[in-house]
């Protein structure tokens, strides 16, 4: 199999990358009708598989689960998830031939094996659905000509996909049709009905392409989402120890700090996150972020280039073939870092203190979000897509660090994201070596502690304007506006 993206001519590559449109609610007036009475068979019963299935069934659709024969025989967790929730469960041979649409909700790594196993069993003219396009775009999986291939990708964890549906709402969702596999021209109707069935249409649907989804998703997860947070955690912790800050405090400031500062990001973008700082601290954070962006820009570009030309996926697939030797090695190294091994102290840190004493962390988030967004859009990815894959998902990843540090983050994200995160971290830590030499505990660990909070008006106006006029802020305000009713206490 060859990298599909690389087989396309440049104009087609650009056209696919540039596909992204926010759909209007009225485009979903047909509801779930396109799927009504059709047999939906889900492969995989993890968090996405189970929760999407629960929503689809509650929307009046016919859902069952197919698992590998071993998983059924050994009554594995996936089997228990499906049966305890009252779903029919059967082997590939039993259920796939009956399916009008097969929902492949297994991890990337299993896609080739799974799709090769089920494709011969699928009935003529059926539909195969993905929620991530890696298998099609990077591995070049060729699907039988008579099958329709679509993607429906909720941009939130499975548990949230369910929780929002039950509340009568949904989560933002990306849909796409694989142009090479739309023999009956029904792909879009099916994808729309699927998005309605999971409740996604209420929170906003982006009509995109397999290629735009893969190239933006990979970029976001390796750089700002996971990579930047890992690198930032390790560097900030080591710096605080060097500066004599209490180790328990340093550990806690970082573990819960990402969650706290990105919560502000979620509600009001980079602008609101920066506005949580005092004026002098905001100017410091701004300057640090500018410096960070200059240093890290070539690294972000390299990641995007490697994703675009297929080097990244080729490198990672070589590691798959080598029993994940690199992945497991890096995972073990991460577990041995001082930050990971130091338990958070039991002192109180107020919400505001996370900002005041975490100025450098705020600067890192700002620099990472803006760089990821700039790099994606300059590579031809549309702003809406770049926003969801950078700013929108950062708080979700930050939550995992608050739970159990980097271990938790890396064990809950996909192996693909984890592999990219280590690549980024391994390059970014040395890259920021000189920069970190100039850092003191006033911007990480202790706060500025100024008696005089005054700032120069002209300078403050200049900084505020620069923050507010970044393109990720305009697109973010629009997209968050669509979800204005979802004012929830998290």
């Amino acid at each position, binding site marked *: 199999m060859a990298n599909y993206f690389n087989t396309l001519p440049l104009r087609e590559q650009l056209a696919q990358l540039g596909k992204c449109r926010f759909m209007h609610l009225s485009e979903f007036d047909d509801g779930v009708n396109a799927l009504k009475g059709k047999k939906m068979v889900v492969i995989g019963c993890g*968090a996405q598989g*189970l929760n999407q299935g629960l929503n689809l069934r509650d929307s009046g659709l016919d859902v069952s689960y197919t698992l590998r024969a071993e998983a059924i025989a050994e009554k594995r967790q996936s089997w228990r998830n499906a049966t*305890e929730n009252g779903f029919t469960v059967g082997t590939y041979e039993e259920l796939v031939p009956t399916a009008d649409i097969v929902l492949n909700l297994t991890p990337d790594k299993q896609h080739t094996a799974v799709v090769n196993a089920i494709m011969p069993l699928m009935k003529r003219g059926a539909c195969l659905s993905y929620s991530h396009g890696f298998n099609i775009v990077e591995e070049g999986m060729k699907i039988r000509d008579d099958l329709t291939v679509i993607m429906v990708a909720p941009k939130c964890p499975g548990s949230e996909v369910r929780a929002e549906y*039950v*509340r*009568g*709402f949904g989560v933002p969702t990306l849909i796409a049709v694989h142009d090479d596999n739309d023999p009956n021209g029904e792909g879009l109707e099916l994808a729309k009905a699927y998005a309605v069935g999971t409740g996604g249409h209420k929170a906003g649907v982006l009509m995109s392409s397999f290629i735009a989804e893969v190239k933006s998703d990979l970029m976001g997860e390796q750089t700002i989402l996971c990579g930047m947070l890992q690198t930032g955690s390790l560097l900030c912790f080591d710096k605080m120890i060097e500066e004599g800050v209490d180790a328990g405090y340093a550990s806690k400031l970082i573990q819960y700090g990402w969650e706290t500062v990105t919560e502000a990001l979620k509600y009001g973008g980079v602008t609101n996150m920066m506005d949580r700082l005092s004026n002098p601290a905001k100017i410091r954070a701004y300057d640090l972020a500018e410096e960070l962006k200059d240093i890290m820009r070539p690294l972000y570009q390299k990641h995007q280039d490697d994703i675009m030309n297929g080097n990244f996926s080729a490198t990672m697939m070589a590691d798959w073939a080598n029993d994940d030797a690199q992945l497991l090695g890096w995972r073990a190294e991460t577990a041995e870092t001082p930050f990971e091994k130091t338990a958070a102290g039991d002192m109180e840190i107020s919400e505001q203190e996370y900002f005041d004493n975490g100025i450098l962390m705020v600067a890192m988030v700002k620099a990472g979000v803006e760089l990821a967004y700039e790099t994606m859009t300059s590579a031809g990815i549309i702003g809406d897509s770049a926003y969801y894959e950078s700013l929108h998902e950062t708080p979700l990843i930050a939550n995992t660090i608050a739970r159990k540090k980097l271990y938790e983050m890396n064990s809950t994200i996909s192996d693909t994201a984890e592999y990219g995160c280590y690549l980024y971290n391994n390059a970014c830590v040395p890259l920021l070596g000189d920069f970190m030499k100039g850092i003191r505990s006033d911007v990480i660990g202790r706060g500025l502690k100024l008696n005089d909070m005054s700032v120069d008006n002209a300078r403050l106006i200049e900084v505020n304007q620069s923050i507010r006029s970044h393109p990720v802020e305009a697109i973010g305000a629009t997209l968050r506006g669509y979800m204005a009713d*979802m*004012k929830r*206490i998290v």
Partner: protein
Amino acid sequence: MITRIPASPESVQKVPGEPHEIRLDALTVDFDERFRLVDIDWRLADDQHWMITGANGSGKSALAASLAGAGQVLAGRLTGLPANVALVSYETQGQLIEAERRKDDADIMDVISEGTSVREILQEGCQDDALCSTLVEQFGLSGLMDRAFRKLSTGESRKVLLIQALTSKPDLLVLDEPFDGLDAATHRMLADHLASLAEHVPMVLVLNRFDECPDFITDIAYVEHGSLLHSISRQDEQAYAELYQLLHLKTTDLVVPSADPVSSLPALDNEQPLVRLNQVSIRYGDTTIFSDLSWTIERNQHWQLTGRNGSGKTGLLSLITGDHPQCYVNDIFVFGFQRGSGESIWQIKQYIGYVSTALQWEYRVSTSLRHVIISGFYDSIGLYSKYTDRQREIADQWLALLGMADRADQAFNQLSYGDQRLLLIARAMVKHPPLLILDEPCLGLDDMNRQLVLALIEKICAGTETSVLYVNHHPEDRIAGIDHHLSLDPA
């Protein structure tokens, strides 16, 4: 969770045999700018056991929580607090459930988090393993030790927190509504245990019901609008009776606002029952909660459902509402739909009004009071639809009925626990559903509000087309007009 006060210069190591007292001197405490305790003067001696009471929203829970270090002291002094204060309240229970929920919410790709087990929760801070085992047995939790905490029923998770507090060897035990949600047998067992514990541990109990006041209580504090209005000795019979009276305000005449003629529901076939369950069961793995249960609710019948903690009351209700995934593997007919025949859950929910403690915890949105009521027209938690002027008018009538007209734009999550409950009942009734399900609607309410709620339910039973399905532990909370009874306890 158990709240422990870190040893501060003001916390006191008790010297055995020496009298000692906790003093609140002109204490003003702020709770997130939502609520304020004002100018509290209070002495709690070593040999006293207090009951705190007052109306919903008066500050009972705040006063109790202040003893565990909650809130920010703005003025005055709080001295003499012992080192280990254990607090159990709806708020701490809700926080722990929320914390467990967040562990689950935070997953990103494909891992199902089981959450912390009951065993792990109980081990945290346990100072007496033997006592812990005894209580686990007495509370009937032995079979649940490896269950994830967040999967417990409301009553079960309450018991876990109580055991956690009782086994922490507290110097002061503060329990906010400890008996609420417990069935009669468990209630007695806990009361007995507290009575024996009272011999060497001072206690502060927040209680909404005077009739639940245990014999060992020596003093009563009455709170109103954040102030400690009365603190009386139990032996002062005259004062005790007056205080009881004060809580028993007369209920006003209630008129239920009409339904919205425009957004009325698709008509039901009068010949068919509202609900028909045929030999239904709920099973988790090898555990059967109940099985072979058949039940028909005809139009205009009112039902009371009872059963001990863990008997599956809420599970049974959720088979009807469609919130239980096993509704698809049972023979269930509701509102004209045979479940699993291609109907959507929203087609079912439109015929049901629903209130429960769990719903209250789910309703974690900072929506205004008016919007909470309007969301009842759309069966959503939070409001995601454009509403009509008529719906807004009806919502305002309900707010007036509840005495909250001037608070229409206030945020729901800033209301007291009891006021939230009243509002959710209004939300459930706003569309005049054919079936109103009230799952322990009086849990956590004080006498006055309990009477208000019960009077409201009686009005609904008598004056509307709605069938009421009422779940409650307290036999004295019977409602005139409810004449059918289903018990899930073994005969």
